[in-house]
């Protein structure tokens, strides 16, 4: 699935195993799952509802940099909107659906792209609204 959506080479997931529990798929790299009562094992990788699956922001932050399509690098103003959790119009070479959103080459998280609109999928508690941004999203040379 990741291959067809993001063009992520399989080698990205070398040594990584997956398991599904209810609606969620988890990724982990362990020699074994220990024989004990576990609250969680590894990192929540994506959620699945019927035929629709949605990658988590943390999975994209970890594996998304290997994406070769449906990935977009935002400029400073756009990135600011994205991390504030906002929706914005964006012209980009993306198919509708979930996309990898990055800024200056580092992945910010998951976005939903539909008909030219990009909606931030960052978890609410991680969003940073404007007055709070310490790290101005400069272009470096500006």
């Amino acid at each position, binding site marked *: 699935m990741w291959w067809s959506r993001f063009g992520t080479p399989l080698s990205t997931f070398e040594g990584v195993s997956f398991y599904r529990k209810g609606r969620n798929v988890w*990724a982990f*790299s362990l020699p074994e799952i220990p024989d004990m009562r576990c*609250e969680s094992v590894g990192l929540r990788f994506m959620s699945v509802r019927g035929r629709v699956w949605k990658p*988590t922001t943390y999975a994209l932050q970890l594996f998304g940099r290997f994406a070769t399509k449906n990935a977009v690098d935002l400029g400073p103003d756009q990135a600011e909107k994205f991390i504030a959790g906002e929706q914005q119009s964006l012209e980009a070479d993306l198919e509708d659906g979930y996309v990898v959103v990055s800024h*200056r080459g580092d992945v*910010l998280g998951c976005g939903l792209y539909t008909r030219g609109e990009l909606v931030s999928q960052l978890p609410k508690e991680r969003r940073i609204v404007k007055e*709070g941004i*310490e790290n101005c999203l400069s272009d470096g040379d500006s």
Partner: protein
Amino acid sequence: MDGLERYRGIVPEFERLIEAIVRPLPVTARINTLKTDRDRLLFRLREAKVPFQPFSWYSLGLKLDVEKPGNLIENLMGHIHVQEEISMVSPIILDPKPGERVLDLCAAPGSKTTQIASMMVNRGLLVANDPANTRVASLRSNCERAGAINVVVTRYDGRRFPSHEFDRVLVDAPCTGQGMARKDLSVLDRWSLKRSLGLQRLQRALLRRATDLAKPGGTVVYSTCTFAPEENEAVVSWVADQVERVRLEKVSIPGLESCPGLVEWDGSLFGDEMEKCIRYYPHQNDTGGFFVAKLIKE
């Protein structure tokens, strides 16, 4: 400040401790090598004009001259983890290796767990345990943000953690937290000998269980952020006496000023061995206060 007076006789330049304790802690963070590397991160911070200063003693530590480091985009991306400088010491002393089996017995909210996961390069097994329901939520979210995928979170009472063999066990014990006074001065007023002694029972039981869980040749590290010898040397020396086949190993970190563990306190003799433990006072390195001991199972 009364809570500190009892340490006048053991702390070098005690007056400097009193001065230091009222100053707020510097904002510090650790670079998360599971998601970035040092050069890349420092480049990002420079480009974004975030003022920072790398630690002299640890290449992955940084002082940040910002008010809300939690609002840095690098924090959102999990490239840094905001963490008190001196607390980075215990994983370094634990020295976990990729592929090993490691237990973090008192793990929440996961500053040290995520540091250990990065030292293990996400390879091997890292069990992060904490019984506190609410704190486990932040433990989990910190592990996810850090991109740690070799972590299993459990919620046992550490004293009864199920039998299993580990190469290394960290006991970053619940304590009276006097060393964190620079974050919240009221910890000093809340301190009482009774609280220290109550925690001592729990700490002894946790450390003792940790020594059971380590395999022969394995390492157990015990740390607290309090000055009270009742919760430090009195715990370690008790366990060293009670448990056969454990020995203390000398702890030191080049570049950080410290004091050896106490040989005696208030009429109790802990033994010369305790000098192998280490104490960090806030005025020595401009950090919080900390205690660390390293035990090897034979």
